């Protein structure tokens, strides 16, 4: 499940949505990305972002034994310490949940069409993010 939204998200509520009444999930990993120190505005390519998130999620499901995945990305203007992005992976075993969550973040950072602006200045892409994505090839 993935969505792009301006509203904040609640990690516990999203875990509950995903675990529900299932009893075969042994490991849940969440990654929350937060705004550091500045005010950010996030712009995205509506339609393509959702498509890319769905593709990234499918890729993770093909590579790891996962029971559920949630990806939520916020857009709009965000203040310091605000949530930006949430990835949740649920699996029987922790190795799958951890690796898939890292993979999802690395791919999202290099493929999902979103751009951050700090005041009038567009944030530059980091080569360290390209390197991080490269290791899953």
């Amino acid at each position, binding site marked *: 499940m993935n969505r792009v939204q301006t509203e904040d998200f609640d990690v516990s509520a999203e875990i509950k949505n995903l675990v529900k009444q299932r009893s075969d999930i042994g490991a849940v990993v969440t990654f929350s990305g937060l705004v550091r120190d500045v005010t950010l505005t*996030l712009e995205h*390519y509506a339609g393509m972002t959702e498509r890319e998130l769905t593709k990234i999620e499918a890729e993770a499901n093909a590579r790891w034994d996962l029971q559920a995945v949630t990806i939520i*990305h916020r857009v709009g203007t965000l203040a310091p310490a605000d949530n*930006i992005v949430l990835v949740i992976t649920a699996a029987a075993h922790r190795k799958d949940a951890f690796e898939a969550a890292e993979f999802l973040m690395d791919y999202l950072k290099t493929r999902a069409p*979103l751009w951050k602006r700090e005041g009038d200045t567009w944030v530059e892409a980091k080569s360290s993010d390209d390197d991080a994505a490269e290791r899953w090839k």
Partner: protein
Amino acid sequence: MKVLYFASLRQKIGKQEENVTPPDNVRDVAGLIDWLTTRGPEYAAAFENKKVVRAAIDQEHAKLDAALGRPHEVAFFPPVTGG
């Protein structure tokens, strides 16, 4: 076809999207960039450094040498910085 611009490219070109009809000899993404560049200095500025221009054809990432085909929409943007 519809052409969309995002982030710094949108700001430089001064519009979010437009409808264009490139000539038949424009066959790939790089060709479309070259043709757009002839439309004014704002395009030339936006596309000055092709290394930091990314493209999508019908909402799928596309390389500069990707064939255009007959797309519904083509988008241009800088490297993504979400997450």
